């Protein structure tokens, strides 16, 4: 009975997400996979950001803990967990406690509907996109609560800034999203969809990424969204709520230890979440690049080799780093560790060459690869741009992005009527 319940979902004919199939066991498995995966990515992201930022700024970044500082995130996590958790005097303890949890809850709820593949989502809601926007807008509550509960001026100003900022940019974001949703309705029935999987399938059906649909309308909408999503996640150059040179650390000034790390986790998870929205809406979701231009068996095979090649590349990089290690005892241990890592990467690459695995991970691989590009962009912005001032931020949101978003929406509708 129970094994049947488990295996029934694996039946090839089902082809729906576990949430839709109503299969609680597989839904749980997916939830664990997604949450574990996201947490792992956030940890890696922590290391990568420091490393990439450091190399952009002609320094080395973490180098001490493990080879090339690879174990630094673990050391950081340990430190944060063991650190004293300070609650400032006069703080509203209950609100102070719940604020980071709300942020985390909001961000992770978004992952419920993110489609990593046609069936690789926890569930598929028919209001998926709406759900995503709604839930991610709850994150601002956590920030506001954190800032207010700290009973301190800097967090309060940070909270005020972020509430105004997020509410403003949500408008532009929403308009950009709607124009993409409009594009989904260009089918025989004339009805669009808000389902995340449905949106990608619409792109599949129309044989184009929405980025290139009605060029340049899709592109403009995407750019509006891409700017707004940086503002939504409070990253540079829109990191005013936590502007370190002005507000020390903004809304999480008074937080420390584990609770502070929850904020960080929330921030990075939110970056991944909004990147996924952008990818789903405009960049074809799980589709591989040029799915309709470069068709045929040969191309399919070539693209399906990418996951394995990526891991071989990582392994090669690690081996190269091993070769560059100094030949002294201290580094010998690290070199062995790094070589082990390279071997693991190589092994994963080999496994990915197997035919069933190769086809199975295709969707997930391309989705994650697109996310990686976005995350790199986030880091790049941070190294390049100065910070906006509050009034300029509002000006950009209301006077630039909002009219552009509206215009794109109207033009998309017109274009849809004419060409659709």
């Amino acid at each position: 009975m129970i094994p049947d319940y488990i295996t029934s979902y694996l039946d090839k004919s089902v082809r729906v997400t576990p949430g839709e199939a109503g299969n609680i066991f597989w839904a749980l498995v997916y939830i664990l996979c997604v949450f574990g995966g996201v947490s792992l990515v956030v940890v890696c992201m922590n290391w990568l950001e420091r490393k990439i930022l450091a190399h952009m700024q002609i320094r080395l970044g973490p180098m001490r803990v493990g080879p090339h500082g690879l174990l630094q995130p673990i050391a950081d996590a340990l430190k944060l967990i063991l650190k004293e958790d300070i609650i400032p005097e006069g703080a509203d303890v209950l609100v102070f406690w719940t604020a980071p949890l709300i942020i985390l809850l909001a961000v992770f709820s978004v992952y419920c509907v993110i489609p990593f593949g046609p069936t690789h989502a926890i569930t598929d809601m028919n209001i998926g996109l709406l759900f995503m926007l709604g839930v991610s807008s709850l994150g601002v509550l956590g920030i506001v609560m954190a800032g207010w509960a700290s009973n301190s001026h800097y967090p309060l100003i940070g909270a005020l800034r972020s509430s105004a900022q997020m509410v403003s940019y949500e408008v532009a974001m929403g308009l950009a999203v709607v124009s993409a949703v409009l594009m989904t309705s260009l089918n025989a029935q004339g009805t669009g969809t808000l389902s995340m999987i449905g949106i990608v399938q619409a792109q599949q059906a129309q044989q184009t990424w929405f980025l290139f649909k009605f060029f340049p309308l899709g592109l403009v909408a995407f750019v509006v969204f891409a700017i707004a999503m940086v503002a939504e996640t409070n990253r540079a150059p829109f990191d005013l709520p936590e502007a370190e040179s002005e507000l020390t650390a903004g809304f999480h000034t008074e937080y420390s230890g584990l609770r502070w790390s929850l904020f960080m986790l929330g921030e990075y998870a939110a970056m991944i979440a909004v990147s996924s929205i952008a990818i789903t809406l405009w960049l074809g979701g799980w589709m591989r690049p040029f799915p309709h231009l470069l068709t045929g068996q040969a191309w399919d095979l070539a693209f399906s080799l990418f996951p394995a090649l990526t891991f071989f590349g990582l392994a090669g990089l690690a081996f190269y780093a091993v070769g560059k290690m100094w030949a002294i005892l201290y580094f010998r241990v690290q070199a062995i560790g790094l070589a082990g890592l390279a071997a693991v990467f190589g092994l994963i690459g080999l496994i990915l060459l197997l035919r069933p695995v190769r086809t199975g991970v295709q969707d997930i691989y391309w989705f994650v690869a697109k996310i990686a590009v976005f995350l790199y962009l986030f880091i790049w912005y941070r190294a390049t741009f100065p910070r906006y001032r509050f009034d300029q931020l509002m000006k950009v949101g209301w006077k630039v992005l909002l009219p552009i978003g509206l215009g794109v929406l109207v033009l998309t509708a017109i274009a849809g009527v004419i060409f659709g």
Partner: protein
Amino acid sequence: MNDPTSGVSHLDFDAKESTFLDASELIINMGPQHPATHGVLRVILKLDGEKVMGLECVIGYLHRGVEKIAENRTYAMFNPYVDRMDYVAAVSNGLGYCEAVEKLLNVEASPRAKYIRVILTELNRIASHQLWLGTHALDIGAMTPLFYTFRDREEILKIFEKYCGARLTTHAFRIGGCQYETYDGFEQDVRNFLDFFAPKIDEYEELLTTNRIWVQRTRDVGVISGKDCIALGVTGPVLRASGVKWDLRKAQPYAAYKEFDFEIPVGTKGDTYDRYLVRMAEMRQSMRIIRQAVDGLPSGPIMAKVPKVLKPPVGEIYHSIEAPKGELGYFIVSDGSTQPYRVRVRPPSFVNLQALDLMCKDQLVADVIAVIGTLDIVLGEVDR
């Protein structure tokens, strides 16, 4: 001491002023420990939302009584102390002090000493501006320039280290000239630096000058007119950015500056962006001066004839130089003994900081940070 409003009187905290939504104004204590106050400056801000209604600086956290120490040291013994005031431009401080005492003693440094002084002082000006640029950009949120400027500042510090053994508090000059002859390859090192640094300034400018966010953050921020500058005694790049073409190196030349050909960059609007441009141009002018000085470095002795024990005749002297931050003056009174009767330092940072209130009025909190950065203060010099 823990009350944020302690020591504040001219901000009337109980006054009812009309604020947005009639909300109560916010009193914020920025500093003395704050990432953007460049040391231990404490600024008490009165805010309406994000708008600054008034502010007051509380200084003195780094007060070490330099002027009192001077009265208890001989002239030569006090020389290293001046390096500790504006510690990012220690060479300039030393130059001002040595020249003041030389004037009081009625001796003149040899031409070679003067040229070496000019080279080192101008190198120090570049180093000071680099530090300013890095921290200022960091305050405004651009992280990367900081690392670029520190990389290039390192080259200057290496020259200092090779010349006199110290990197920061150099104590490079002695009363009467320079203690050290230049090391072998000094000229080549300086030339190499100039060749190395010229493209680097372009690199900084590439990151910032046409960056839209940078321009938006600095244009029309902290505007101060030339008239206000003079009334408030503000000197240095801040004054020049407000359109007043006044530089002590030209107006009342000291050391060997008369012999060099250089320009005084001036701004037009007196905002933070102009001050940025002026300082960038000043770095280029400094390079020009250094190149001329290195090319024309005369030979000869490096120390003038000064007695072993310095006993200036009774009298007083005011001598000022153009430090990277503005007019740095020394007023020295001698009573004929081996110790000065009084040494008064006219610190540019201290006087310039007074303009903060005027420049920040009705601006936003983020602008206060930008203005503190653009004033280029060093708290060691403000508090002495």
